[in-house]
C-alpha cells in the first residue's frame, strides 16, 4: 500500500504497533507452552461412549457441551434471519436461477445425488467416526446450491412457512432436547444414557437439514433480487 494514503497514516501506525505487540506476546506464549495435552482430554475420551457418541468430538459437541452447540445453531439461524431481512423477503420464490450451462447441468445430475449420499453418510457416521451434523449439512447445502446453479429451483421453491420451518428445525430440536428433561424433572439437556445415541442422531439430523437450507439461503439471498438493480446474471 502506498504510504500516506488510506485510513490515515497515524491510525495505521497505531494498528501496526498494536498488532506487532500482539504478535510478540502470542509468540512468547506459544513458545512457552508446556507440552502434554490439556486436562480435559482424558476424561472426555473415557466418558464419550457412555455419553452417546464414541467419536469424542461429537460427544463434546452434542453431549458434554450441547448447550454451546445449541447456541451455535441459534447463531446460524440469526444470521440467516439477518440476510433475509437485508434482502427484505421471507422467501426466495421470486429469485430466478442463473441460466443453465449444459456441462454444469450434466455434472450436477451426477454429483447432486452423491451429495445426498455423502451427507447422509457423514451424518450417520458422526457418532462413531469423524463426521457429524455440520459437515453433513455443508455437503447437502453445496448439493442444493449446485442444483440451483444448474438452472433448477431447489431451495428457492420453498414457500415462506416451509422454509422457516426447515431453518428453525435445528434450534427447535435442541429446544426439545433441553426442555423435555427439564419438564420431566432432570436438568436441562440431561438425556438418559440408554437412548443417548439415538437422540443425538435425531438432533443431528435436524441440525443437518437446517444447516443445509441455511447455507443455501445465505448464498442465494445475498444476490440481487430480480429488479433490484444489481449486476448479477
Amino acid at each position, binding site marked *: 500500500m502506498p504510504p500516506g494514503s488510506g*485510513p490515515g497514516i497515524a491510525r495505521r501506525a497505531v494498528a501496526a504497533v498494536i*498488532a506487532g505487540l500482539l504478535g510478540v506476546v502470542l509468540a512468547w506464549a506459544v513458545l512457552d507452552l508446556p507440552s502434554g495435552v490439556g486436562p480435559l*482430554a482424558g476424561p472426555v475420551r473415557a466418558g464419550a461412549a457412555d455419553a452417546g457418541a464414541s467419536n469424542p*468430538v461429537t460427544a463434546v459437541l452434542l453431549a458434554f457441551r450441547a448447550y454451546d452447540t445449541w447456541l451455535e445453531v441459534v*447463531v446460524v439461524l440469526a444470521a*440467516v434471519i439477518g440476510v433475509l431481512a437485508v434482502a427484505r423477503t421471507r422467501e426466495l420464490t421470486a429469485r430466478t436461477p442463473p441460466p443453465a450451462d449444459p456441462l454444469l447441468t450434466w455434472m450436477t445430475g451426477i454429483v447432486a445425488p452423491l451429495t445426498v449420499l455423502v451427507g447422509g453418510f457423514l451424518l450417520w457416521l458422526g457418532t462413531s467416526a469423524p463426521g457429524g451434523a455440520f459437515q453433513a449439512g455443508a455437503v447437502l447445502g453445496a448439493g442444493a446450491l449446485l442444483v440451483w446453479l444448474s438452472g433448477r429451483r431447489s431451495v428457492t421453491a420453498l414457500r415462506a412457512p416451509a422454509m422457516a420451518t426447515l431453518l428453525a428445525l435445528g434450534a427447535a430440536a435442541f429446544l426439545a432436547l433441553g426442555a423435555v428433561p427439564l419438564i420431566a424433572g432432570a436438568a436441562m439437556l440431561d438425556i438418559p444414557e440408554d437412548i443417548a445415541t439415538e437422540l443425538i442422531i435425531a438432533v443431528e439430523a435436524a441440525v443437518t437439514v437446517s444447516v443445509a437450507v441455511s447455507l443455501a439461503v445465505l448464498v442465494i439471498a445475498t444476490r440481487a433480487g430480480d429488479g*433490484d*438493480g444489481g449486476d448479477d446474471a
Partner: protein
Amino acid sequence: MSGYEPYMLAGVILIPLALYALVAHPNPLRRVIALNVMGSGVFMVLIGAAARGEGPADPVPHALVLTGIVVAVATSGLAIAIARMLHRMSDDDDDGGGAGEP
C-alpha cells in the same frame, strides 16, 4: 521442532497480520477476508495446542474450533449481505451524491 509447533507459529504470524489488514483496508470485503484469516490463525493456535502430547489429540479444542468455523461462516454471510446491499444502495443514489458507507 515438534509436529505442532510450525502450525502454531504460523497462526501467531497470521493473527497480527490479519488484524492490521482489518484496520488498514476500508473495503468491506477485504475486511471480511481479514477477519476470516484472523479467525483461522486463532484456530491454528488452538488445534496446535490440542496436538501437544503423545497420544491422540485433545477433542475439546476441536469442538470449539468446529463451532468457531460455523459461526465464522454465518457471520461472514451476514457481513457480505450487508456490504452488498450498501453497495447497491450507494449505486442507486450515486447521481444524487449519496455517501457510500460510513
